């Protein structure tokens, strides 16, 4: 009995340490990719200025189209950063408040673990992302969580 309890505590500590390590690694990776993304944005800004002979004047059509494609594509980096930030925050919370009642990752405990994690999600979008990750093991080809059909949409009130 005592051995089983000690084993449970040990697994929970391992889980906490793993979650903390994962959160730190994610934070480093996010920080590392921020500078190149900003450099790319600056380069696009400079290209945009070079393409326009005068303020507000149209640039060469084909190159302007290519530039617009770059602007759209680079926004997916921002989206990735947001999603990673959600996961990082989730891992940090898990590390800060370990789940003592969880003995492991067996199927019997899995639903309990998911339910405990769901309670710690801050917003609807985090919830959507979490459900997507849990359901598919990854983000789909089209990206986005739940609201992907609304991508690029606009609505004036």
């Amino acid at each position: 009995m005592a051995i089983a309890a000690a084993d449970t505590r040990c697994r929970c500590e391992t889980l906490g340490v793993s979650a903390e390590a994962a959160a730190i690694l994610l934070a480093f990776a996010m920080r590392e990719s921020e500078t190149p993304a900003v450099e790319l944005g600056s380069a696009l800004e400079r290209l945009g200025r070079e393409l326009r002979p005068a303020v507000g004047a149209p640039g060469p059509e084909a190159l302007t189209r290519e530039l617009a494609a770059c602007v759209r594509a680079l926004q997916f980096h921002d989206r990735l950063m947001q999603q990673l930030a959600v996961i990082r925050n989730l891992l940090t919370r898990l590390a800060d408040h370990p789940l003592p009642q969880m003995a492991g990752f067996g199927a019997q405990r899995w639903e309990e673990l998911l339910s405990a994690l769901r309670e710690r999600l801050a917003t609807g979008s985090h919830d959507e992302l979490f459900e997507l990750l849990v359901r598919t093991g990854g983000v789909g080809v089209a990206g986005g969580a739940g609201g992907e059909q609304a991508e690029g949409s606009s609505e004036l009130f």
Partner: protein
Amino acid sequence: MARILAVDDSPSMRQLVKLALSSGGHQVDVATDGVEALQVAERQQFDVVITDVNMPNMDGISLVRELRRRKNYRFVPLLMLTTESTAERKQQGKEAGATGWLVKPFDPDRLLSIVTKVLT
């Protein structure tokens, strides 16, 4: 040419909004969150404010609410530019006083045409 304030905590998003709108001849200033945006908006008057929703210190919905309390921003178009697209969040934005809700990723031409539309 309009004076536009773009608010986003992501540096690359600020650059992209600035790039898209300055190609239309607009003058774009930037702020990193709602608190900084309020300070900038108090120093100078903008014709349009485009803000992200999820930001540290002060989110975009609170920023819109705060700006609408100020007499000089009561009728200024305030656009939300965000990855969020749930009806609940849109409703919150609308109630706070937002003029429109744009979902990222944006198309530069589309953003420009929306800004033109809200300015007329």
